[in-house]
């Protein structure tokens, strides 16, 4: 037994050493750097006290919340539908809905430009219909669209897996008692999907909080926290502020995921 423990420890050692040297130590260092400079530990308070930082924190939280809610509604409707109704082309549809799963943020940003940019599809359609060119890629609305884009593939499979486990008899019973489709959805299906909504919702929220690539591609003046951190670090060379803000951002997303995991009782892990 003792020998086995030693063997297991030896197997764990390479990953442990790597992790300690390149993650735990750097995070500790980041925390200290965040408290350096003339501000000291007060740097950590600037996220509340500095008006720009606080505004970007609120904007990021609002964007992440809106992304989560809209994504869950879209994935909820499409996921339950595709799980319940098997028809020709169903598998292909699911495959297409999950295809962008590992597209990086920069590419998602470009997809937004292709859809809603200056030469974009939405602009062309709106110009043909109304004579006015709608372009919103380079704004908060474009960013929001990009975040919904990359959140749908991440949530739809979980919703489908949970919908598969729902007991159809409950819905039959509700229906035979005279409940309308809307009541069945509200009182039977949505409560049944709640664990999936909590776990994937947390992933959506955390990913949207920390995503950087999409905002970077759409660039310009979108004032979300990752962009503020990037600007502080590169343009202002204010490494202490960048470190403090990114430490806070990391803590917030990690806490959101941890809380959701406790609430859902299952395993929750962010992806990409």
């Amino acid at each position, binding site marked *: 037994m003792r020998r086995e423990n030693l063997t297991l420890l030896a197997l764990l050692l390479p990953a442990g050493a790597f992790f300690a040297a390149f993650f735990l130590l*750097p995070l500790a260092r980041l925390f200290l750097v965040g408290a350096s400079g003339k501000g000291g530990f007060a740097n950590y308070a600037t996220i509340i006290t500095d008006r720009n930082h606080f505004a970007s924190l609120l904007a990021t939280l609002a964007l992440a919340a809106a992304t989560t809610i809209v994504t869950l509604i879209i994935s909820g409707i499409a996921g339950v539908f595709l799980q319940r109704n098997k028809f020709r082309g169903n598998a292909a549809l699911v495959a*297409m809905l999950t295809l962008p799963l590992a597209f990086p943020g920069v590419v998602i940003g470009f997809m937004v430009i292709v859809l809603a940019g200056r030469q974009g599809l939405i602009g062309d359609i709106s110009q043909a219909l109304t004579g006015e060119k709608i372009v919103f890629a380079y704004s908060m609305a474009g960013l929001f669209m990009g975040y919904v884009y990359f959140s749908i593939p991440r949530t739809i499979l979980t919703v489908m897996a949970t919908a598969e486990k729902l007991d159809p008899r409950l819905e039959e019973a509700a229906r035979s008692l005279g409940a309308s489709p809307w009541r069945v959805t509200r009182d039977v299906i949505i409560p049944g999907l709640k664990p999936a909504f909590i776990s994937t919702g947390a992933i959506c929220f955390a990913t949207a909080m*920390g995503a950087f690539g999409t905002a970077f591609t759409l660039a310009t003046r979108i004032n979300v926290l990752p962009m503020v951190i990037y600007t502080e670090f590169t343009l202002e060379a204010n490494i202490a502020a960048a470190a403090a803000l990114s430490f806070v951002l990391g803590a917030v997303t990690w806490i959101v995921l941890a809380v959701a995991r406790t609430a859902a009782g299952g395993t929750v892990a962010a992806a990409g």
Partner: protein
Amino acid sequence: MRDRGSLFYAQLAFALLVCAFLIAPVILSMLAGLTANYQVGIRSGLTWRWVGEVWSGYRETIFLSIGIALACLACTLVLGVPTAYVLAKRQGALARALEELLVMPVAVPGLATALALIVTYGGAGGFRTSWVFILVGHVLFTLPFMVRSVLAVLMAIDLRTLEEGAASLGASFRQRFFHVVLPNCRSGIVAGSLMVVTLSMGEFNMTWLLHTPLNKTLPVGLADAYASLRLEIASAYTLVFFLMIVPLLLLMQALSRPRPRKLRVEAE
């Protein structure tokens, strides 16, 4: 089968619309990369010119990304598979805490991890400017996916009986690990490997801060192209990226589809 009323078709239309939202820009950007002049449209003719320009201007980024992805795969195999094995053998609170810790680089935004690496190792000149610095970030980010994928398979098989059987026949630990454990978690290793390679090829959040002008990966090059080049070249570059990553994603989907359950030796 229920009769397919208007509700069915309304939901089908909704699903198709969502699908169009996800797939239309992919197809449009691929077309744009092959169109002589996107503003004029497809009737301006199809051309390989933009793909050629990407190849001559950016092929190093493609090779570097493939190289880093493969190196990353090697690292996550060496570090991750033994870790998954240990976590499968030990179910205590300590093992759970370790697992939790290991997943942190996925939960913490890449920007924060990259900044942490820079403030810690930024002064180490040779290391900071080499591609290995990018590799470290990629390994941190992808390791949890390898560990989880292998761990899921190890938890599903009866690892203990398999190992006891092998041990009772006189197999040493090394023999058991390489000839019993590894072959049995092959499916998890394959799935994890695909995920690691795909994620490494697309990683941007960390790489943007970790890279140097001489070490540009494909997504970094993409960001450059989006910022400064005409839409056709940016699209052609994206097309090249899609050609590399979409087969991996399709393979991943094919492998994760539930197959008929294989017969397993029941030991109980």
